[in-house]
């Protein structure tokens, strides 16, 4: 019976977890499973997601040039962008008016999105950000299509730029989200 010690050890593990959960403060204190359990009772209490969690994608309007790179890289084709060109006043007096891309529509269909983050990575102008917010489920599938106002609202929840960990590959042109 070479399996026997392992089987007894297994029983010990489950028993230990049981006591750790029911009596987290030791057997002499009153039992409090709510404290001992590793889980939380979700709708009542919430765990703060990690700051870099991939919850929802936020859009920083002003930085977007409607270059379509994110829409083209998206594996699910769930980003819809429309824009038009506008003339902006020249930089110097007497100069030629500048051309600017104005964003008309920027929708992300989170019913299709697989949260790969390629759009955030590929954006050369720092217009897309990850937000750790995750509670945006809807009763209707169509309402998961977030338009550009809704995507801009998520910007409030984007955490400030965090220092990279030592040895991490640095993105050269990274700019703070609040610019």
């Amino acid at each position, binding site marked *: 019976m070479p399996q026997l010690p392992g*089987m007894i050890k*297994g*029983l010990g*593990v*489950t*028993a230990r*977890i*049981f006591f*750790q*959960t*029911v009596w987290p403060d030791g057997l002499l204190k009153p039992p409090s*499973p*709510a404290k*001992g*359990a*590793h*889980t939380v*009772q979700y709708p009542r209490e919430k765990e703060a997601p990690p700051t870099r969690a991939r919850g929802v994608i936020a859009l920083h309007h002003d930085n977007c040039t409607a270059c379509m790179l994110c829409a083209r890289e998206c594996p699910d084709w769930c980003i819809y962008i429309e824009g038009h060109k506008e003339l902006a006043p020249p930089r110097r007096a007497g100069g030629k008016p500048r051309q600017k891309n104005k964003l008309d529509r920027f929708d992300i269909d989170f019913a299709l999105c697989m949260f790969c983050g390629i759009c955030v990575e590929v954006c050369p102008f720092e217009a897309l950000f990850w937000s750790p917010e995750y509670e945006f489920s809807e009763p209707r599938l169509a309402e998961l299509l977030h338009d550009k106002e809704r995507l801009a609202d998520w910007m409030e929840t984007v955490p400030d730029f965090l220092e990279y960990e030592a040895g991490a590959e640095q993105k050269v042109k990274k700019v703070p989200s609040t610019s």
Partner: protein
Amino acid sequence: MTLASLFAVALDDYWVTTIFRVVIGLVAVLLPTGTLVYLFLFKMMSFMQSRLGPMEAGPFGSLQLLAEFGKFLQKEDITPAKADKWVFRLAPFVVLISTFLLVLVLPGGPDAFFVNLDVGIYFALAVSSISVIGILMAGWASASKYALLGGIRAAGQLIAYELPLVLAVLGVVIQAESLNMNTIVARQAEWEIFGFGFFGMPFIITQFVGFFIFMVAIQAELTQPPFDMPVAESELVTGYLTEYSGIRFLLFFIGEFATAAVFSAIGAVLFLGGWWIPGIDASSNLFNVIGPLILAGKMILLAFLIFWFRVTYPRFREDQLQKLAWKFLIPLALVNIFVTSVFKVVF
């Protein structure tokens, strides 16, 4: 006319007695089942996995069972188009009937029993095999390959583990010199070992090998993990339960855990002294009242072991499962019977 005499007259009437027995029988099956499912399956299992389990329905989720019951009642009772409809619909009742018949011979006290059969334990082991027929019916009639494989696996497993179960019980029967479950309890209360008679002689002390085999065998008979090959969800969806939904699935579910309760109670009767506790004379009338509660307490103790093993161990492979029964448990049980008989003759 006093209340007691009114009661006595009422009990003389056949139909009143029958209704009384049916109600007590339902309570005796459903109450322990609910207790086991809530206490162990919902709560203890959760704590062993470091979570809280159901917490919403009632204080600490104590009304969760009612919620589950309501959920199953709402669900559509689907019968597959190609199923053998009569057999399909009958199968859960066959499984449940075997459980109800098992309760029949459980003694709750010197006079608190449904029937006092002289072949009590033999009857219990015989009717427990009826559930195999129900499971085979379910597996065959579902017209699904998963259900059929699950049913056949279940039949193979239940038949394989019935042998060690019977042989383990045989050791107790040889020692107690009786098949009557009430007599077995009385023997455990009256006898003593080596002149040391305070706690009587619960057969777990002399028949510890039999107790071990019995516990392993009922774990397999109940298809509880680690012996849940018939309902192995990763290969067979849920085996013979695959096509069942709604109330019929609930009946199977109740049958599974009610049988767990009843087998634990049988184990308590055979090995832990049944309704008897040390300190009170075994023929005392008191046991007719507190006996069922004592039996329930011992039943919960054994059920705790079953569910502890259930939570701890991963599933066996089919061939390992059969090997354990035929190559280890049955020879061990035979040796146990032999040694018991020798000791019985010598002492």
